[in-house]
């Protein structure tokens, strides 16, 4: 991974995200079309990490694109791509809840879930939204204190549900390095949660 940080806005400029944002702000439908054209494939690939069925993937991407069209303006995301990823993930997770068979969920997502459950037990979504919001606050604070490389590997695994081998190939690391990094970061997260009064 690079040590030189790139500003998100630079990436947006390179991918045309800035121009699309301008169109969306002007409520120009060409912006919605350009957004689908530019990010659709990548979002579908992202959705495929959570959902095996191609139709499900397309539907969640369409959901995300529609929500983005409805949200901007007033929303002004720093990075349109990251905003779309977040919306796609939420839609995919929501769709996942309606799946009845575990076999329909990609293995790497199940494994990633299991690893995180070991950090703080297998809490389910019957727990309050407030609990999730509090955990998100702690997680984001913890992630902010990590070296960039560790943070990206953690997110690739648990936010992006990539397999260890995929992450290793992507960043040119050994699988064992990825595995050890994740273990170290999970251990740190467990300690952080314990210090905030959570117990596994």
């Amino acid at each position, binding site marked *: 991974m690079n040590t030189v940080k790139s500003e998100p806005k630079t990436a947006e400029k390179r991918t045309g995200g800035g121009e699309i944002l301008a169109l969306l702000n002007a409520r120009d439908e060409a912006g919605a079309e350009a957004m689908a054209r530019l990010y659709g494939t990548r979002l579908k690939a992202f959705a495929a990490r959570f959902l095996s069925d191609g139709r499900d993937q397309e539907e969640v991407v369409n959901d995300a694109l529609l929500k983005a069209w409805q949200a901007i303006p007033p929303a002004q995301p720093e990075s349109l791509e990251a905003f779309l990823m977040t919306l796609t993930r939420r839609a995919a997770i929501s769709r996942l809840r309606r799946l009845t068979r575990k076999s329909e969920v990609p293995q790497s997502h199940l494994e990633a879930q299991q690893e995180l459950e070991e950090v703080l037990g297998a*809490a389910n979504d019957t727990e309050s939204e407030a609990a999730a919001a509090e955990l998100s606050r702690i997680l984001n604070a913890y992630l902010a204190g990590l070296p960039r490389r560790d943070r990206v590997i953690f997110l690739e695994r648990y936010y992006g549900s990539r397999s260890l081998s995929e992450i290793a190939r992507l960043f040119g690391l050994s699988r064992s390095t990825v595995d050890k990094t994740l273990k170290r970061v999970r251990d740190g997260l467990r300690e952080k949660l314990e210090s905030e009064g959570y117990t596994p």
Partner: protein
Amino acid sequence: MNLWDNVLNATDEAFVSEMLEEERAAEERRADAANEHRTEENPGRRLKKWLIPAAACLILGVLIWGVSGGLFRRTPVNTWEQWNAYLHPTKEPEAMLAEEYRARIAEGPYASWLPVAVCAENRVGEKIGDTVVKAAWTYVGLDGTVLREPEEEKIETLRAEVYSLRNISPETAVCLKYLDRGDALTLTHYYTFLDPAAAFAGPAEFFGALDAAETMSLFYSENVTAAAVETAGEKDVSYTRYFVGEDLAAALRERILALTGEAVQADEQTLYAACGKRALCSLKFSIGLSGRLQILESGYLSFFPDNLHGEGSQTFRISRSVASDLIRLIEDRGTLDVPDDSGTVIATTGTDIATPE
């Protein structure tokens, strides 16, 4: 679905953006490296690219014809050599290059030393000086050799304090605590650096120099204490894994630490000549060094560090009887690894073998 899905859905978008940036940068770097590789090719290399496979096919054809037709008398092959190449391939087709974070001490007495891993804090001694480290993400081959030096502007210059290690001479190893944060380093850990060229008169001196009585433990793969015993046949190597209980681990450890012998510079031919069996396990030192230990029935003991970029291996001649005794100890007192699903012992041969982790 669990709570974590909801938690992660609220991940700070700046982090998501950063992840996407890194993905894009990684893809670009891989494309650049591939382009660079292509442009480096000259006509001579392109010719070689075709000539080598053609020559290999020709040689293979002649060999098949020769062996099947009895042109050659079958000569004994070094099955260990083939086996080692199989277990420890120097390259794999999926990823020919990797990017590793490499740190080197810039100047002073430790300038040629290499980092191994994080040192247990209870092994850290007194502060003995200050130094500067140059660190960068570096393209390396899977054998650890640097394929491309990092660009100057991407090299981090980090100040660090040098500490001795308890009961270990600063001529063998020291550890560093960074005062400036590197991209893959923390300010809180102590990182051990070793002299990869260090030579030891015998196994006792080697283990003594690392204070192995206090720092060394045996394992096989993560969380498993086991040892493999491999037996060379004429054409193949059979493999058996033994779980090592606490008593046996203690006995093995005690005997390894008490070994006497002398350092040798031996090639594979010498090591494996008249070697019917070898035992393998891994050693982990709490100062951060780890590696593979092999005991050869031919009377040698070797240690190959797995985190010194292929450097720093040690080979000692111990007696044949001592080596055989150690292997027999594992066979007699170890518990055979029996897979749950088959009820048979792992002891396959040839390329279908279950390779150790």
